[in-house]
């Protein structure tokens, strides 16, 4: 079973040289720590930055320089600032190659819910609806099971949707799943020490298992 850093590490392997990537809040933010040095990758922060660098050294925090999670950050050589309209302009125009974000639920056809629990939690969708509606490729980083022990990988989402038929891949503490065009979750890899049976038990939606399922290399 993977911890949060393990999930982030596995997702980092999906990033290719030359990619522009948008990382959501939570586990996706950790992905930045595992992108191989030799790859040329540019991180977009939707509050107006291309080329997000690491956190600043203590004492060098700049209140005018934050990421979409409101964390203090730094720039890199080649960074560019822009306004929010241009930021979502480039997102809508599909100039961002990969979006990685968290989810409360994902359904068999790739629907995602991650912004609202009616009557309980209303934080808002932020930029997530724009990102999932336009991204060329979306990977979800999430826990397979919620705190009540219920699967979050479902036939259909029960929570208000963020986007429809958009998720391409899911990485959880248990597995890597592809959302296939005909509907369903195709099991691609198992987390270290996790069996296919355990993944089956944790997946409420249709799980497609074909042949031997390799264990992740992370």
């Amino acid at each position, binding site marked *: 079973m993977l911890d949060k850093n393990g999930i982030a590490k596995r997702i980092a392997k999906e990033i290719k040289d030359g990619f522009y990537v948008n990382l959501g809040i939570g586990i996706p933010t950790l992905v930045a720590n595992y992108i191989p040095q030799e790859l040329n990758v540019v991180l977009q922060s939707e509050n*107006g930055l291309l080329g997000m660098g690491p956190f600043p050294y*203590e004492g060098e925090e700049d209140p005018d320089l*934050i990421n979409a999670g409101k964390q203090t950050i730094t720039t890199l050589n080649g960074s560019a*600032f822009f306004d929010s309209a241009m930021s*979502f*302009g480039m997102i809508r125009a599909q100039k961002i190659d990969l979006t990685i974000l968290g989810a409360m639920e994902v359904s068999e056809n790739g629907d995602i819910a991650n912004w609202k629990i009616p009557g309980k939690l209303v934080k808002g969708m932020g930029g997530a609806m*724009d990102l999932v509606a336009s991204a060329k490729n979306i990977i979800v980083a999430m826990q397979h099971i919620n705190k009540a022990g219920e699967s979050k990988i479902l036939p259909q989402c029960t929570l208000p*949707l963020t986007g429809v038929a958009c998720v391409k891949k899911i990485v959880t503490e248990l597995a890597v799943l592809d959302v296939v065009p005909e509907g369903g979750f195709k099991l691609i890899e198992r987390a270290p020490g996790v069996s296919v049976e355990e993944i089956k038990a944790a997946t409420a939606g249709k799980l497609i298992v074909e042949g031997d399922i390799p264990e992740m290399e992370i």
Partner: protein
Amino acid sequence: MINKVVPDAQTAVSDIVNGMTLMFGGFGLCGIPENCIAALVEKGIKELTCISNNAGVDDFGLGLMLKQRQLKKMIASYVGENAEFERQLLSGELEVDLIPQGTLATRCLAAGYGMPAIFTPAGVGTEIAEGKEMRNFNGKEYLMEMAFDADFALVKAWKGDTAGNLIYKATARNFNHVMAMAGKITIAEVEHLVPAGELDPDHIHTPGVYVQRIFEGKDYEKRIEQRTVRSR
């Protein structure tokens, strides 16, 4: 050149009255118009509709106006840092319209660029699409979203000149530029107000034609929400 300078925040907001629609620049607490917010809190006007990406925190930013119950309605994309906000929302004291961040930004752009409506795929297939016109272009569905119509935009820039030209710093540009363009009347507060001619015309982000009033703010707190650092 036309001189847009007013002496202070109090003067700048003097004709903002109960029931108006106001835009506030900033993302989280980054780049918010601190002086204008303080002046509006002092002024105590109510029944305001506020358009802002976030709603501040409990004791800073728009949170100060929420605490005084000056807002009737909030149009925002993310409000997850504010307990008072959640209380007013759940109690029904506050009307809230949560919309996607890109839709928020682009509805500002539309207003600033004289476009009555724009098309975006954000929210298609979700509750955001309810009651909205949908349209298919090249096989993809889009929602038609209307330009904002705000009485005032209150924005914060790093530098500004007496002609109203604005330059933002780093990610504090965020919604400030698009809202500066979107307001019927735009009030800009700046950290450094300089005479016209001191800013390089190639470096200006918001041309002065979009700004009706400008003043140099004071006592900027510039609070950090998430202080994240690495060790040396």
